[in-house]
């Protein structure tokens, strides 16, 4: 029996000819990742266990992106602990204020992740790198602490759901709408413990940034990972970024899938996930009655340059509705600089938005845009759980940058064609 793309990558990293769904394996890791919330706990575990060295100082990334620039003394203390650890072991993929970006936008941009690699990160959205044809998944801090010491970890080989994309994207439709549509179809536990393997003629319709957004939110369907095949779009993106050899894995023609889900892109329109689960999806055109107080455009899901471009295209020459606050967060310093160069920053400022330095901040109710009771936000982030962006009685509506921008102008949920 053949293997899925994920299974092939795992087999190779476990030094096995083949693996099957459900098998427990130990796999070598090409990279392990932590942020300023999860790394401190990993360092404690690493030190408590008595480890005195890391497995490879080039294969650990520490990204201080969540509560930075530090929101309070406690978060500053956590960052200091990460900084001390990074210096002690001369970790070269250490990103601090000035170089830091939101981790899952930063690592692909900097060529730190590549097709065919096996990556874990103590952050649930580590599954983003499947966009490049890598196996990557989120773990906890103890797993990270162990991986930093030994460079490998255990996995249960996942079964897979085959997601066949076909048709053509409509105007304003992006990867965000595709993944929200999929989560709406299969539910927040629809792919629990499984891989989401994307395939079909519609893959060519998906830019690398669409793919990054789609794989980023695989976890919101409970998936272990999401993964796209490696094609010319992938090669064009990694060329000039990744300077080491990498491997393009392909699913076997006779690979076994638990089930197949088909998405006809012609039928996908701008989609919004209402509180309090990402599966609670509705068409953006039906949101007129939902007045909003804030928009957030950014995050590991939608903080890349094309996301900024999509928001700027809608906001150009317009202004936020009275009473709506607009927070735009380019995900990396490169994106931040490009926004200035392309004139997007001026467009955002003219529209009445603020432009924040890279941070995860508001996505998880950390800082830079928490909400009070009764407030509502249309956000390009990835979770709309109770209390996710502040008060438990505040509400987060998940959408694409174009929809968030349109909603900011309208003062209620809106499709970009409506403003």
């Amino acid at each position: 029996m053949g293997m899925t793309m994920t299974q092939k990558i795992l087999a190779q990293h476990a030094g096995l000819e083949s693996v099957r769904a459900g098998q427990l394996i130990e796999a070598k890791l090409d990279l392990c990742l932590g942020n300023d919330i999860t790394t401190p706990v990993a360092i404690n575990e690493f030190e408590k266990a008595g480890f005195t060295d890391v497995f490879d100082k080039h294969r650990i990334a520490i990204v201080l992106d969540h509560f930075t620039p530090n929101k309070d003394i406690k978060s500053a203390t956590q960052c200091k602990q990460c900084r001390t650890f990074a210096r002690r072991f001369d970790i070269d993929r250490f990103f601090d204020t000035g170089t830091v970006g939101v981790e899952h936008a930063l690592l692909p941009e900097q060529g730190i992740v590549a097709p065919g690699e096996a990556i874990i990160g103590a952050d649930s959205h580590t599954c983003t790198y499947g966009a490049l044809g890598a196996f990557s998944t989120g773990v906890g801090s103890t797993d990270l602490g162990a991986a930093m010491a030994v460079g490998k970890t255990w996995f249960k080989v996942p079964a897979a759901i085959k997601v066949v994309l076909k048709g053509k994207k409509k105007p304003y439709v992006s990867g965000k709408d595709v993944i929200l549509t999929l989560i709406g179809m299969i539910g927040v536990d629809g792919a629990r413990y499984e891989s989401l393997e994307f395939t079909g003629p519609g893959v060519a319709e998906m830019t690398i940034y669409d793919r990054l957004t789609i794989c980023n939110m695989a976890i919101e369907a409970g998936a272990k990972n999401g993964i796209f095949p490696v094609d010319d779009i992938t090669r064009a993106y990694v060329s000039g970024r990744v300077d080491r050899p990498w491997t393009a894995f392909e699913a076997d023609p006779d690979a076994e899938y638990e089930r197949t889900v088909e998405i006809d892109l012609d039928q996908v329109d701008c989609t919004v996930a209402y509180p309090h689960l990402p599966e609670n999806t509705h068409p953006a055109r039906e949101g007129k009655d939902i007045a909003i107080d804030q928009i957030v455009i950014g995050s590991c899901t939608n903080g890349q340059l094309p996301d900024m471009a999509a928001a700027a295209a809608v906001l150009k020459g317009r202004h936020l509705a009275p009473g709506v606050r607009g927070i735009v967060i380019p995900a990396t310093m490169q994106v931040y600089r490009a926004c200035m160069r392309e004139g997007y920053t001026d467009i955002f400022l003219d529209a009445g938005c603020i432009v924040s330095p890279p941070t995860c901040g508001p996505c998880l109710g950390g800082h830079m845009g928490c909400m009070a009771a009764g407030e509502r936000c249309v956000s390009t982030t990835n979770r709309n759980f109770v209390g996710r962006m502040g008060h438990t009685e505040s509400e987060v509506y998940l959408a694409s940058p174009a929809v968030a921008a349109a909603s900011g102008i309208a003062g209620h949920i809106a499709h970009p064609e409506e403003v």
Partner: protein
Amino acid sequence: MNAQGKVHKYGDHIDTDVIIPARHLATQDPKELAAHCMEDIDKDFIKNVHEGDIMVAGVNFGCGSSREHAPIAIKAAGISCVIAANFARIFYRNAINIGLAILECPEASAGISAGDEVKVDFDTGVITDLTSGKTWQAEPFPPFIKDMITKGGLMASLRAKEA
């Protein structure tokens, strides 16, 4: 090994943001994390919970963020075992890694009521509701996981291997 205590019951898709809200993640102190455990959906949980109590929930328990602070907070609040219909995968790993007992049992998850006195036998996987008198059989851990738990969690089992 057994656990016995009063049940705190919750629904489906209990996410890590409600188990421990991100606004409290600037600390790693288990007691401080426990003080805010479940507060966004049950502000009285931390007042009502007693050492050894049991948490029961529906499907996809622990979905969302990878924060290990979630099982740490539950454990430090005094919960001796979480019984759920099933668990989100990162939470499942984290709970095992930090030594929070968890059991998958859809039937027990449906059959146990809030406030019941429940006993769990970890060796056999038998769950007994002492209030209703009903019993259920939970899914046993795969041998690999059981071995890791026996050795005292991930770090301890790694150290044992290295030695």
